[in-house]
């Protein structure tokens, strides 16, 4: 590129004198890094890797299959965030199912689902997908639905980021020296979960904002911590206070409880999901409309699982840019606009151009 590395990353990296891998676990970071070309501007010794930071991408195929089975077999109307619409299930996506007559409505907020369910009546389920950022909004809408007697259930696949970060650190063959932590997850959680990880594994965990200069600021802090050999957790994103948002966490605690859940690429991680608390058990779509679906068969050539754990990068996949493109995606990492494969395809990446 010929231009100097941004901020102090060049001098700090030279002083450190070794190659490091920093993993981000946030789809918005993925897009910002590739769109700005930051990965190509950084010193070659600072390697950025995308982890399991896109909620749609980590949702297993059979979740989509189960949602569709509920719609077709039980006549349940589905409300979903738009991101999930085109994710391929075993045979088809929710968009395909809608074309075949399933009732699938896209909403921008769980509260829209509540409002629509209230005015329409009939059995309906919200496809509850999202990380800590989104979970409190889902919790609030479900509690409101219960209080107002609105018939809205939830098919839960909400996930927690810190257990996935630990799973990545424990996975054989993955080397991560530091985490660029997700700004809007931290707005809710605060630093505590990241502090625990940095202490236990000795890796810096720095929360970053989403503008390229904010990401650079976080990377400078990571490099400095590695130089000082004092890995810690801190926020370089002013909107994410150290204590997070306690009111939002209380809302989550009222409606949701941690449970084991499956992540694409990482398998079942204990206590890494959020399910409905006992007092909302009757709103659990999985209990209310039990459906059996055959085990999902993902395309064996698709490396989405490996891409999500950082053990492969998108261009390593034989399907990337060939059989798998945003127009005709095979795996969810290409479907979601925040997926690593989609970001690499659209904006390029280090080594690709």
């Amino acid at each position: 590129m010929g231009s100097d590395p941004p901020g102090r990353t060049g001098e700090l990296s030279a002083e450190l004198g070794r190659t490091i891998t920093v993993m981000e676990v946030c789809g918005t970071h993925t897009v910002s890094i590739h769109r700005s070309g930051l990965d190509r501007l950084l010193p070659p010794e600072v390697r950025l890797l995308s982890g399991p930071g896109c909620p749609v991408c980590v949702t297993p195929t059979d979740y989509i299959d189960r949602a569709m089975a509920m719609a077709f077999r039980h006549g349940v109307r589905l409300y979903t965030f738009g991101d999930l619409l085109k994710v391929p299930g075993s045979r088809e996506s929710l968009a395909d199912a809608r074309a075949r007559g399933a009732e699938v409505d896209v909403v921008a907020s769980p509260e829209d689902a509540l409002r629509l369910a209230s005015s329409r009546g009939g059995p309906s389920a919200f496809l509850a997908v999202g990380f800590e950022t989104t979970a409190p909004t889902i919790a609030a809408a479900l509690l409101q639905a219960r209080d107002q007697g609105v018939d809205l259930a939830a098919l839960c696949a909400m996930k927690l980021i810190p257990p996935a970060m630990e799973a990545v650190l424990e996975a054989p063959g993955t080397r991560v020296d530091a985490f660029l932590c997700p700004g809007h997850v931290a707005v809710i959680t605060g630093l505590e979960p990241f502090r625990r990880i940095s202490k236990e594994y000795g890796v810096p965990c720095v929360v970053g904002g989403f503008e390229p200069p904010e990401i650079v600021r976080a990377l400078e802090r990571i490099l400095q911590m590695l130089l000082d050999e004092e890995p810690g957790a801190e926020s370089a994103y002013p909107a994410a206070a150290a204590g997070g948002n306690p009111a939002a966490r209380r809302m989550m605690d009222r409606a949701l409880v941690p449970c084991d859940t499956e992540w694409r690429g990482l398998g079942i991680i204990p206590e890494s999901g959020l399910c409905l608390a006992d007092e909302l058990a009757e709103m659990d779509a999985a209990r209310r409309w039990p459906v059996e679906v055959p085990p999902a068969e993902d395309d064996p050539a698709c490396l989405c699982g490996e891409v999500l754990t950082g053990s492969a990068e998108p261009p390593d996949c034989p399907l990337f840019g060939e059989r798998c493109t945003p127009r005709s995606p095979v795996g969810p990492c290409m479907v979601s606009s925040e997926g690593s494969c989609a970001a690499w395809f659209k904006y390029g990446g280090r080594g690709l151009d």
Partner: protein
Amino acid sequence: MCLAVPMKIVQMDGPEATVELPGVRKRVRMDLVEGASVGDYALIHAGYAITVMPEEEALETLSYLREMADGL
């Protein structure tokens, strides 16, 4: 999916508020934040305010989001 946009609170109405950006006005839920008042900037995610943030930071983020939108 965890995208959130800072918007200025122009009216509070119990559990709801009206927030705006130049050219955009929106009703959002305030269940998840405490102590917000008219004139503050709130970070809006999925129809809910998820935190209140300093104006300076809000404006900086907005200028970047605008740039991103222009590039799409």
